[in-house]
């Protein structure tokens, strides 16, 4: 009997976690200053599998299982960056940021400025956000929180193609980047996305700060990101059957915020709905709407609305969760109200 290697899976059978692992492997291969720190990233390959295979390939110095010491190992990234390395730090769930935000917002975000350009902070904070049925302390998005703190670039990709390409950009830039995955997407295969873009094997980058029109439409500008894009596309299909043509924009990053793409769309549609899985108040939805009004003037909008988590912790019970987190159904309803 001859042993034969199993054929590699079809590219569109890769899930998001696998594409992230692929991205990290490519970046670590091309730049030996790149290294990975975090809980369960080495032996276990990440609790969502985003770092699987990296320990075997790059060794434990560069793929380091840390103790549960986020303040300690996030601070390590600061020293490593000042010493010339390019650390990727995994905060397993973004909800855990509370115990190490100090190093993120007082050190990583501010040192380039405080040092008058003397030091750069090529650090990626890679972390999983979003809904996964795990209630208040394991389901937040928090990109609005990071975006509020000056000095951080904040990305939240929606497709396997963007997860790969934005990770390449995040590792390559000398700016600090908070890279927020969505737990609801991590185990989803490329072929199961509505928003399908083939993921090439060769390295490529998706620029940070460029939004993408995912579905062109003329009646309503629907601006969202991360898992919200899939929900928006599902809603748009339903609405199309009702004769409502939705322009779906995937922001891809919160900082920088690509307002040019948004305002171009709003100029055509005159109606703006911003959908966000993060909290409603003082966040992305208000920011996008305000900047749109500042750019185009209030008369450019016939109708405007926002749909986000209404300032409440994410509940445990599914019935309650569905009541507060935007989904395809609630997004469609919000669009109908907007065009009514």
């Amino acid at each position, binding site marked *: 009997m001859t042993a034969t290697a199993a054929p590699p899976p079809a590219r569109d059978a890769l899930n998001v976690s696998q594409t992230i692992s692929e991205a990290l492997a490519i970046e670590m291969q091309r730049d030996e200053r790149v*290294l990975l720190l975090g809980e369960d990233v080495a032996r276990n390959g990440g609790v969502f599998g985003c770092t699987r295979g990296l320990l075997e390939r790059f060794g434990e*110095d*560069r793929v380091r299982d*840390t*103790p549960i*010491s986020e*303040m*300690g*190992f*996030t*601070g*390590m*990234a*600061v*020293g*490593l*960056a*000042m*010493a*010339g*390395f390019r*650390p990727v730090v995994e905060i397993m769930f973004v909800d855990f940021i509370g*115990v190490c935000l*100090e*190093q993120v917002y*007082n*050190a990583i975000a*501010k*040192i*380039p*400025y*405080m*040092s*008058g*350009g*003397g*030091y*750069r902070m090529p650090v990626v904070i890679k972390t999983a956000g979003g809904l996964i049925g795990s209630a208040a302390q394991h389901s937040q998005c928090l990109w609005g929180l990071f975006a509020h703190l*000056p*000095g951080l*670039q904040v990305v939240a990709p929606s497709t396997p193609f963007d997860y790969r390409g934005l990770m390449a950009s995040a590792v390559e*830039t*000398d*700016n600090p980047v908070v890279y927020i995955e969505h737990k609801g997407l991590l185990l989803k295969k490329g072929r199961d996305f509505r928003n399908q873009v083939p993921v090439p094997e060769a390295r490529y980058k998706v620029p940070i700060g460029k939004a993408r029109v995912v579905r062109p439409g003329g009646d309503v500008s629907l601006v969202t990101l991360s898992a919200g894009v899939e929900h928006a596309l599902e809603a748009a299909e339903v609405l199309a059957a009702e004769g409502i043509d939705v322009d779906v924009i995937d922001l891809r990053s919160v900082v920088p915020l690509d307002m040019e793409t948004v305002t171009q769309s709003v100029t055509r549609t005159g109606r703006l709905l911003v959908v966000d899985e993060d909290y409603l108040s003082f966040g992305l939805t208000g920011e996008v709407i305000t900047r749109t009004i500042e750019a185009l003037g209030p008369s450019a909008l016939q109708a405007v609305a926002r749909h986000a988590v209404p300032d409440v912790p994410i509940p445990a019970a599914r019935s309650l969760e569905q009541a507060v987190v935007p989904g395809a159904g609630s997004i469609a309803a919000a669009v109908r109200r907007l065009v009514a």
Partner: protein
Amino acid sequence: MNTGPTLERFRRMLEMRHFDEACLEGVPGFEIHGELHTGIGQEAIGAGMAESLRPGDAVVSTHRNHYHALAKGVALRPLLAEIFEKETGLCRGRGGHMHPFDPATNFSATGIVGASLPVALGYAYAYRLRGTDDVAIGVTGDGGVNTGGFHETLNMAGAWKLPLVVLVENNLYGISVPIEAVSATATLAERAAAYGAWGRKVDGTDPDTVADAFAEAVTHARSGRGPALLEATCFRFRGHFEGDHDNYRPREEKQRIRRDHDPLTLYRAKLTAAGVADQATLDALAAQGKAAMAALLAEVRADAQPEAAGALRYRFVEEA
């Protein structure tokens, strides 16, 4: 090892004292318009560090950082200019006195108590990855030893045998709270045992004692045997910051500290008793140092503040 006393250590302490006295001059007229934390009274620690530090080593300091910067070799002029909020400063006036960053000497600081230590750990890990024998020094006060980051840092450094020296300057008070009121251990150095670290407590008012112990701590860390925890006891002569009423310490205690525990006075006595120099020589050194610092201060004061048009620069690399 018993080294000293030496004129060089005296000269270093003088420079640190004169430097902080020059900073004090910036407070009344709001040339330094925020908090200022001086190290007056704690100079023996800075002088004791200086001789063991190599250019490749890193020092990550605290809000009370001027004398550590001088010990690491940060240039006086840009440091003073940064503290005086000038465009010619080390960080172009963006950092200020609590946040000096000097890539040329691997010196940095943080204004957040205890936050220096994880950053120093990162340097230590970097040195391990590079396979050099450089060491990282994380400085904290007695306040920082009760943060979670202190534990996390020493635990990781111990688990991975990283070349880290944690230098604890125990000046007995975290602002107003006496360390003995909030520490479970009688000494801070004894906590080293929990992390498999080298640990020692020394008199931080004598630069010779500090220099010898610091050299041993650094040698330990350089040799790959893991972290060292050096506690140096000292006295803060002034309030926590300029403007602190410092009513939590009795007047008699503050008078006694200045009278009995001034590292410069003590070292003068040591130098003369050992016959290294006479009072007249030391007086002349002090006068020269003071004059040189006054000249530098006058120069720095004439520098311009950063232009308002540049207030948003340096947030991202595209703006640098």
